């Protein structure tokens, strides 16, 4: 064995003034810990023979100690001068070896700890590489195994989650749609909403935890949302984690509204049917989701209110999760202006799913004999082509008229009021809700 290590240790001890512990040496030179201990001993001997400048060493002594009628295995770090003393006190000595070598006399063993701590910290991955014990089980799991493990962990939680919603009562069911907005959207895209919506009217408070039910609930809540003239957001935001509490409240409120507005349901399926007709819908919807991500940031800050549309727009469903903030505050999004420009670009953005603000001024006589002039933005979410846009534009009109007889009158009025209020306030004021929607 070449004696290079002697020079190495010499360098560390004398030139760098380091405390060389066996562990540090073993990690630095890449040798077995026992070899490192022996190296230190050899170095110590060598230097002592040469009578070079003072070197101090600490030793590790372990053995059996008897005291107070009990024997214990004592492992101790001692200074060189205490070594013999210690050895004499032990009844049986198991091992003695050099722990560290350093130039200065150590009064306290604290620095030894910090040296070892740093050595280990720098080599966390292979701290046991040079130790004398191997454990066959102690092999870190590969990333794939870890992923598998995590997936297994994650799969049960959603199931118990659903169960908790049973025990915790109704309110938690509302959170289900929020937890699976994606699926809800996809469910909508799957064009199965019509039968589901009808089921939903029966089981508004159902506690089924199957995905389908959550989807249906999401669908239903979204539909209910639509029936609510106040809430309209675009689906892009659903991908963001929404506040379940708000959603909860909102969806529950919506559910209740939904119950009241049972007749609406019939309209919805009908509307949905018409909506589903166009093939481009599904195409655009899928595309919509792709592009919607990019637009999310833009859309985020904007406060949208959509006029309730009877047909279950896929965008509506996407938008449902955001309805709570919408419902609660009467904010107007100042950014509606840029959106107003959008309709002109409708052709270029036919496949993009978002809400567009169409600045228009509508004057009409509602059933109470009030002439309502809306000079506001009608934010409509649509992802169809311009032609569809036209047709859908007609639809809200029709639906509004049709609904005058239903009990959603209040909602209507609310929406009118809100929209007029918004129109009055214009787009000058930054919306508060932009605050909440930032995620």
């Amino acid at each position, binding site marked *: 064995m070449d004696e290079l290590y002697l020079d190495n240790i010499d360098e560390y001890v004398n030139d760098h003034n380091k405390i060389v512990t066996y*562990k540090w040496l073993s990690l630095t030179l890449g040798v077995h810990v026992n070899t490192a201990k022996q190296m230190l001993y050899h170095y110590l001997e060598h230097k002592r023979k040469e009578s070079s400048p003072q070197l101090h060493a600490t030793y590790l002594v*372990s053995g059996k100690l008897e005291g107070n009628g009990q024997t214990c295995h004592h492992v101790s770090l001692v200074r060189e001068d205490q070594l013999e003393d210690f050895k004499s006190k032990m009844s049986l000595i198991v091992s003695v070896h050099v722990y560290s070598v350093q130039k200065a006399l150590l009064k306290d063993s604290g620095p030894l700890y910090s040296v070892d701590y740093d050595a280990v910290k720098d080599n966390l991955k292979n701290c046991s590489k040079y130790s004398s*014990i191997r454990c066959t089980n102690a092999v870190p799991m590969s990333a794939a195994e870890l992923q598998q493990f995590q997936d297994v962990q994650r799969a049960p939680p959603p199931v118990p989650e659903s169960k908790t919603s049973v025990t915790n009562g109704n309110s938690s069911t509302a959170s289900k749609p929020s937890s699976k907005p994606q699926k809800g959207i996809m469910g909508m895209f799957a064009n199965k909403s019509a039968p589901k919506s009808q089921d939903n009217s029966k089981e508004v408070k159902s506690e089924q935890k199957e995905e389908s039910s959550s989807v249906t609930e999401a669908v239903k809540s979204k539909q209910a949302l639509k029936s609510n003239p106040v809430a309209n957001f675009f689906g892009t935001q659903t991908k963001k984690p929404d506040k379940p509490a708000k959603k909860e409240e909102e969806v529950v409120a919506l559910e209740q509204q939904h119950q009241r507005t049972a007749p609406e349901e019939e309209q919805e399926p009908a509307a949905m049917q018409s909506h589903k007709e166009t093939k481009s819908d599904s195409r655009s919807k899928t595309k919509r989701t792709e592009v919607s991500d990019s637009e999310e940031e833009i859309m985020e800050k904007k406060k949208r209110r959509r006029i309730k549309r009877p047909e279950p727009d896929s965008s509506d469903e996407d938008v449902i999760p955001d309805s709570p903030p919408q419902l609660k505050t009467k904010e107007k999004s100042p950014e509606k202006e840029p959106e107003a420009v959008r309709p002109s670009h409708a052709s270029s953005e036919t496949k993009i799913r978002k809400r567009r603000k169409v600045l228009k001024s509508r004057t009409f006589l509602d059933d109470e004999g009030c002439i309502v002039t809306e000079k506001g933005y009608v934010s409509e979410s649509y992802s169809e082509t311009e032609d569809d846009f036209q047709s859908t534009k007609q639809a809200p009109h029709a639906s509004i008229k049709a609904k005058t007889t239903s009990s959603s009158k209040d909602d209507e009025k609310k929406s009118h009021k809100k929209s007029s209020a918004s129109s009055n306030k214009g787009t000058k004021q930054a919306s508060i809700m932009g605050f909440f929607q930032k995620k």
Partner: protein
Amino acid sequence: MFSDLSAQREGSSLLCRPASEDQGPVFERTTIDYSPCTERYRLGERSFSRQYAHIYAARLMEMRPLLSERAKHKWGSDVLIKKLCDLETGEQCCIVGTLFKRMDLQPSILKEISEEHNLLPQPARTKYITEADELILEDELQRIKLEGKIDRDKCVTGSVIVIYGAEKNDGKFTVEDFCMADLPLQTPRPELGSDKFVLLASGLGLGSSKADSMLGLQLLVDMVTGQLGDTGEQSGAATISRVLLAGNLLSQSTQDKDASTKPKYLTKKTQAGSVEAMRLLDELLLQLVASVPVDVMPGECDPTNYTLPQQPLHKCMFPLSSAYPTLQLVSNPYSANIDGVRFLGTSGQNVCDIRRYSSMESHLEILEETLRLRHLAPTAPDTLGCYPFYQRDPFILEDCPHVYFSGNAPVFGSKLVKGSDGQEVLLVTVPDFSSTQTACLVNLRTLQCEPVFFSAFSADEDEESEMNVSH
């Protein structure tokens, strides 16, 4: 003993020049069969809307037949076992019920918040017992005061016992003798061919402001991973087949809620003490799990739920060490079958709580008492936080463990207890490492426990104190 065995092994001294080429010996860690009993103390979904009375009902229902057996065994099979509602004055009989000790000093939240008393919150005391305490026995329907040959100071609320005596005219029950459920049956442990050890340690106390115990901890880790010591000792350390950390991995000082006492502007950017401490723990565990299977139990100061049974620490807090399959995060209380030897133990909260409400001082004595009562934590839920179980009481010992331990004791203690049906239980009180620098090694073959003491030198220490081994 570990020392003897290590000394007997073949090993050359390391006080010599390094041999040529020889890389150094590598020993294989002894493997053992291990199967944890996870379901008993794990809570699935939790609902706190129930009252705690159900636990007591479940406890009494489960223990009543066992105690009736014991009563017949002790006082003759023709002894009358009556319910409290059927008691007649002057009749010698046995009654089975739950003990309740009415203590004046017992902290009561109702008294504290009641304005008519104008009480300030009571300061924490070491003992809450007084001379004026009363023992009452309760069963499903009634309760009756007890007096007589029963040591009131040793008993704690929640223990289910059977009492032999008679009701006197004044409406109190005079106790002539009483009996506890005693040890359950034990499956005999298999004969092991070679010595295998399990290391028990608790109270690591990471994250504390004084870092005195850190070197001791490092020495412990080095010894277990086979870096410390001669080849003989290293091969001995290879027989340590498992490490069990019984709670209080973080120090009490990480529990300081600075945020609630100091003003916000001072504490705004400060991190909780436990964050750094958990990182230290993760690094420490990484060194251990790379070499030996480790079971980590949470304790009083660890970031998990407060009520018993404490759920395992979450693996997201251990990003480095949870990659290893040798890391097992387990609940408190913990029960496992290690190579045929049944281990059962807690992190010490149950023992500390009994200590506060009885006159018993030694943790080992209290541990034995809980074993005889056949219940891990009789004071739960009265003075010890507990989950409101509904139809079961998981703290009742159903079968007898071979090793029964509790962590965070002030001193190390171990005792072999023999039961009436041939049971053999090793009781171990695992000492708090941050104050005693002592861990325990249990030999699975002989069921003996040996303390391991780590020490270092410091400036103000003279040799006498170094030899002051804490036993």
